[in-house]
Each structure stands twice: as structure tokens, then as C-alpha cells.
């Protein structure tokens, strides 16, 4: 029968927790890149000029249709292949952001097209200026549509940040490998690492449920 010995892993718990903060920071930075990329691409898909729309579609299809690990490796090797020096941390965050940006683009597009035109017309005919209509009518309604799928993407992005261990970025999974080789306790190590990931991704998921409930409150 298996006996688990958590003592050696618990002795390294502070290392794992510090590394998890790095993972959270990478997750947030990646999400910022993803939001920018996704929003820009969604806006581009609304432009009448065909070339602009095609570029946006190409970005979404290419990044959604290929593995994230391939993209991480591509952006990791790219500077070296071109003879430039960029840290793995930066290329990793950019790769995460561009991959999940392609998913967020579709969410944002749905939100832009999802707010009824009648709502905007009604606000405008009541004398609301365009900017105010955006902040007071369009944005609050779009927010309630996007918040839960965006939280889903954030949780996926956060979990995918574990892939940056492959290019040597110091985060939770890489630290897990280090602790595993030092403690000779692989099961205990990966259980501890998984538990930390689980706690953070649960916070993201349940936080979004709470936020959504608050945002939808004003709705009829």
C-alpha cells in the first residue's frame, strides 16, 4: 500500500507558494495581452474594409487552429532565430496572450453584435450623447454577456501558464519539477502543485460568478 510522505514537500511549500505568485502574475499579464489582442481583433472584424476583416479572421483561425505549445515554442525561438535578445518571460506572456486573444476575439465579437440596436437608438433618441450611450447603455449590457466566458478563458490561460515551464520561465510547474527531483516524492509534489493551481482557478471561476451576479442585478 502506498504511503504518502508530505513532510519533504511541505518543507518546500514556501518555494511553491512564491512560484505560484509568479504564475498568477504571468496569468494576469497574459490576460491583459489577450484582452487587448481580442478586443482589437473583434473591432477589426466590424470594419467595412475587407482587408482589415480578413486580417482579423486570419489571426483568429491561425492562432485557434494550432497548439498553444507550438506557439510558445515559436515565440521563444523566434528572437534567437532573428538574432535578437528577448527574455523567455516576455515571449511566454505574449504567446499566451495571443493564443487566448483569438478566443476572446470571438467572445467580444458576440458582445458587440449582441447588444440590441434598438437599445442604442432609444438612448440616442432620448438625447444621450454617443459617448454616454456607450458607457451607460452598451458597455453595461455587453459586460453581462462577456464576464462569464472571459472568466472561463482566464482560468484556461492561467492553467496554460504551466506550459511556460517548458521554455524555462520560473513559475509553479517548473518549481514543482525542481522540488520533485530534490525530494524524490513525485506524487506528493504534483498533488501539492495541483492543489495550488486548483485554489487559484477556483477563485477565478467563483469570483466571476459573484461578479456576474452583481452586474446582472440591475437587469429586469
Amino acid at each position, binding site marked *: 500500500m*502506498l504511503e504518502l510522505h508530505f513532510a519533504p514537500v511541505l518543507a518546500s511549500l514556501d518555494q511553491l507558494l512564491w512560484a505560484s505568485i509568479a504564475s498568477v502574475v504571468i496569468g494576469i499579464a497574459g490576460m491583459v495581452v489577450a484582452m487587448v489582442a481580442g478586443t482589437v481583433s473583434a473591432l477589426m472584424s466590424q470594419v467595412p474594409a475587407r482587408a482589415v476583416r480578413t486580417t482579423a479572421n486570419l489571426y483568429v483561425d491561425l492562432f485557434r*487552429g*494550432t497548439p498553444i*505549445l507550438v506557439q510558445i*515554442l515559436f515565440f521563444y*525561438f523566434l528572437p534567437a*532565430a532573428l538574432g535578437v535578445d528577448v527574455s523567455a518571460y516576455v515571449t511566454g506572456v505574449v504567446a499566451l496572450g495571443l493564443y487566448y486573444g483569438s478566443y476572446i476575439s470571438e467572445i467580444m465579437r458576440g458582445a458587440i453584435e449582441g447588444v440590441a440596436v434598438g437599445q442604442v437608438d432609444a438612448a440616442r433618441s432620448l438625447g444621450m450623447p454617443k459617448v454616454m450611450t456607450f458607457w451607460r447603455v452598451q458597455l453595461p449590457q455587453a459586460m453581462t454577456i462577456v464576464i462569464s466566458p472571459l472568466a472561463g478563458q482566464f482560468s484556461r490561460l492561467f492553467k496554460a501558464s*504551466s506550459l511556460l515551464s517548458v521554455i524555462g520561465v520560473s513559475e509553479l510547474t517548473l518549481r514543482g519539477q525542481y522540488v520533485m527531483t530534490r525530494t524524490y516524492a*513525485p506524487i506528493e509534489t504534483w498533488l501539492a502543485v495541483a492543489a495550488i*493551481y486548483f485554489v487559484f482557478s477556483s477563485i477565478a471561476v467563483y469570483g466571476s460568478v459573484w461578479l456576474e451576479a452583481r452586474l446582472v442585478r440591475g437587469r429586469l
Partner: protein
Amino acid sequence: MSDLFAFFDPMQVIDNTGILLKGAGMTLLLSAAAVGLAAVVGGVLGVMRSSSSRPVAWGSRAYVEIIRGTPLLVQMYMLYYGFPSLGITLSAFTAAAVALANNTGAYTAEIVRGAVQSVERSQPESARALGMGHWTAYWRVVAPQALPIALPALVGEVVDIVKWSALASVVVVPEATQVVYQIVGRSYRGFGSLFLALAVFYLLVTASVAAVSRRVERRMTRYRLRVAHA
């Protein structure tokens, strides 16, 4: 200009065609194994999730939540590095296939559960009233109605398996990504062409999966369409 040529040097792809194709084959094999296993895992978990037995429903729900809340890479490491201390040593290929299938299965379980619940209760109840057994009613009445509903989401899961199978390269399964990684590790020559070929390969596979699924969906809903047109 010569730099740009070195970057896109097609000879790197042509010279390595043999191992690249082998890698592509390995990706397909790994994906196929994982899809088959995932169907079993997802089906079993999905049925357990809708079970009337409290411990079964609760246990399967907890399992699904844990798998969905942790990274696939960590789950793969658990199988590959952790399971040997339980006396279960898995090859890199098996560990990757099982991790992929188990992870996808947890997502599939929710799709299966949603589709099963979307079938009207009166359907299995009528079947039972007509004297069909519990499992026969499930298989002959509920499943044919639930499957077309679940299909688009299930296809998404198959596409995800193909894409996430690239993670097997981390435990050195010689699939497509691993092969390109090794070539690039030796020399950056042809870097652009190699990654372009890799991207085209994955895009072709995922597009084919989508194309096949459209045909299957049309076939599955052919009775429904006929009724709709009547």
C-alpha cells in the same frame, strides 16, 4: 536578404521530410488513442454525473471539478513521474494518451450530461412503459436524440485533443512538435519553414475533423430534417 532565406530555407523541411511525416503520424496515432479513451471516460463520467445515487453523482462531480481546475501538464507529470511510485510505470506515449483522454473526458462528461438532460424525460419514460429495459431505453431512445445535440461540442473536444497532444513532446514522445523542436534545437536554419509546415499540418487536421463532423451531423439529423420539411 540571405538572412531571410536562411529563415525560410525550405531545404530544412525537404531534408527532414521522413522524420516530420513520422512525427505527424505519431500525432495522429496519439490523438486517435486519446479520442477513443476520452469517449469512454467522458461517457462513464457523464452517466455517473446524472446518476440518482448521491455518492456516485457527488464523487464524479468532485473528480470532474478537480481535473478541470488543474493544468493538463501537471496531470501528465503526475501520471508519468508519480505513478511509478504506485508500481504503475507508464511509457511516455501511454502517460500522454491517458492524461489527454482523462482531461478531455472531464470536459466531455459535462457535454454528455447536458445533452442527456436536454432529451425530454417523457422519452425514456415512454420507452420504459413500452417494456424496454433501462439500458436499452438509454441506448435506443435517449442516445440517438442526445448525440446530435452534443456533436458540435464533442467535435470541439476532438480538435482540442489534436492541439493539446503537442504536450506529449514535453515527455519526449516523438510526435510532430517534438520532431520540429529537435530540428530547431540543432540549427535555426529554416526555422520559419519548419514552423509553417507544423502549423499547416495542425490546421489541416483540425479542418478535416470539422469537415467530417459536418457530414456526420447531417447524417445524424437526416430524420429530423425530413420531419421538419413535412
